[in-house]
């Protein structure tokens, strides 16, 4: 596999930051993603680092630990437990990578273990307000 092996960060080549939002397809009783093979993730993480495209990335703790905050028009703060895992897909983590174009980002998304086993990876360019 040579996907994503396009030279990057080379002087003069404009790259784009993309966020890969990793959606777990199925969630177990504790709100953790099912079928998560630690070895696969470690290998993927290493290949992202080695390719020199890594900007940032985090894996999120189980959904049972999530809390939702809303502030109404009157300024009143509402805090509730959740969201619960009723939604079919749950955000499990993300990467931000810096690559030349969407095709390269899609290749990295396809290599991500989160895109398999009923999960999916949503690829979104990071807004560029610089130019």
């Amino acid at each position, binding site marked *: 596999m040579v996907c994503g092996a396009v030279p990057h960060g080379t002087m*003069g*080549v*404009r790259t*784009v930051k993309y966020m890969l939002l990793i959606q777990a397809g199925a969630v177990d009783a504790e709100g953790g993603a099912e079928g998560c093979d630690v070895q696969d993730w470690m290998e993927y993480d290493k290949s992202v680092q080695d390719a020199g495209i890594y900007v940032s990335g985090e894996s999120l703790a189980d959904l049972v630990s999530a809390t939702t905050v809303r502030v109404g028009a009157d300024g009143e703060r509402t805090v509730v437990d959740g969201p619960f895992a009723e939604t079919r897909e749950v955000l499990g983590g993300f990467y931000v990578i810096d690559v*030349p*174009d*969407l*095709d390269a980002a*899609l290749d990295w998304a396809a290599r991500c273990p989160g895109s398999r086993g009923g999960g999916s990876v949503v*690829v979104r*360019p990071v807004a560029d307000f610089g*130019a």
Partner: protein
Amino acid sequence: MGGEAAGAVAAVFREEHGRLLAVLVRRFGDLDLAEEAASEALEAALVHWPVRGVPDRPGAWLLTTARRKAVDRLRRDQAYAARLAVLQAETDRAAPPAVDEGADIPDERLRLFFTCAHPALPAEARGALMLRCLAGLTTPEAARAHLVPQATMAQRVVRAKKKIREARIPFRVPEPHELPARLPGVLQTLYSLFTEGYAASSGPDLQRPDLAEEAIRLTRVLRRLLPAERETTGLLALMLLTHARRAARTAPDGGLVLLEDQDRTLWDRALIEEALPLLPPALAGGPAGPYAVQAAIAALHAEAPTFATTDWPQIVALYDVLSALAPSPLVALNRAAALAMRDGPGPALLLLDALGAELHAHHPYHAARADLLARLDRRAEAADAYRRALALAGTDPERAHLRRRLHAVDP
């Protein structure tokens, strides 16, 4: 004089538009800038050509003018230029500028085909982009061709271009190892344009650009650019053979004429003659693709003097191949119809009954079933099936056809 020159400009421009745009996109890496420069070059041609005459190499003239317009724009708009500057350096390094001023426009259109049909774009925008970027249709023309309001078409194009720009969908030809995954999307877009041309063929607007012919024209171009890809050849053959029957498909009153009732002398022999030599290369040299197999089926119809003397055993065999390649209830339905011609309506009816769960909401299924029941002289059941088909049919010509059939079994 003015009108003549304008006509010449329009003809040249339509022919050269895709090439021009592809080279400009390659050079500047930006579709909007490329489109703007291309249309300004056309305006300049409309001013100058009637006075000075059409240049010897109209394409090269348009390209030189368009590049100058693009550079002017970048000089005027420094922020825009800054955004594109690095991009430009990148494109220049990737390959030395492919353009020398004296030559005709080099053909960079393949990358545009792949960008327009990129899987990250919504399906309904892909055909619209191809019509605009590669076939040279304006947005109002593309809207008329698709029978959608101009605003809808404009919105589709604007959104798709925004996505290309912001998500940075590249203008590049996929690597050979990526082609098997990417080419089917390009072929599917072309085939959708083609079939939509048929769906829209009963519309009221006679000035509408012919989608089927545009799709054929673009597929010819794609085949020249990718001569080794056999499915492109198969798709072109399938389109030509289908298009050849066009005049026979519609009755003078606008009604639909089925294959079995068509006047075969109306079939366009020139298109058939163009298509038949495409089949051997499309079918040979490895497992055939679904377009090539469908073209082979269409060719057997084209070569048959009558519906009854068609080589039905061979057609059933080809549908067996197609069912293995691209299984779908519709392929199974067509296979059953061919089998009815080979083995009679009884065995075919058994096949259709097995498809009922998947196709019960599909009017051709009920129409095909009704035809078989009528042939078996089970008139009450046939009438019932025609009524179900009538309730589901979408267009007037189809309904008129079904009413005639219903009347024959239930006068």
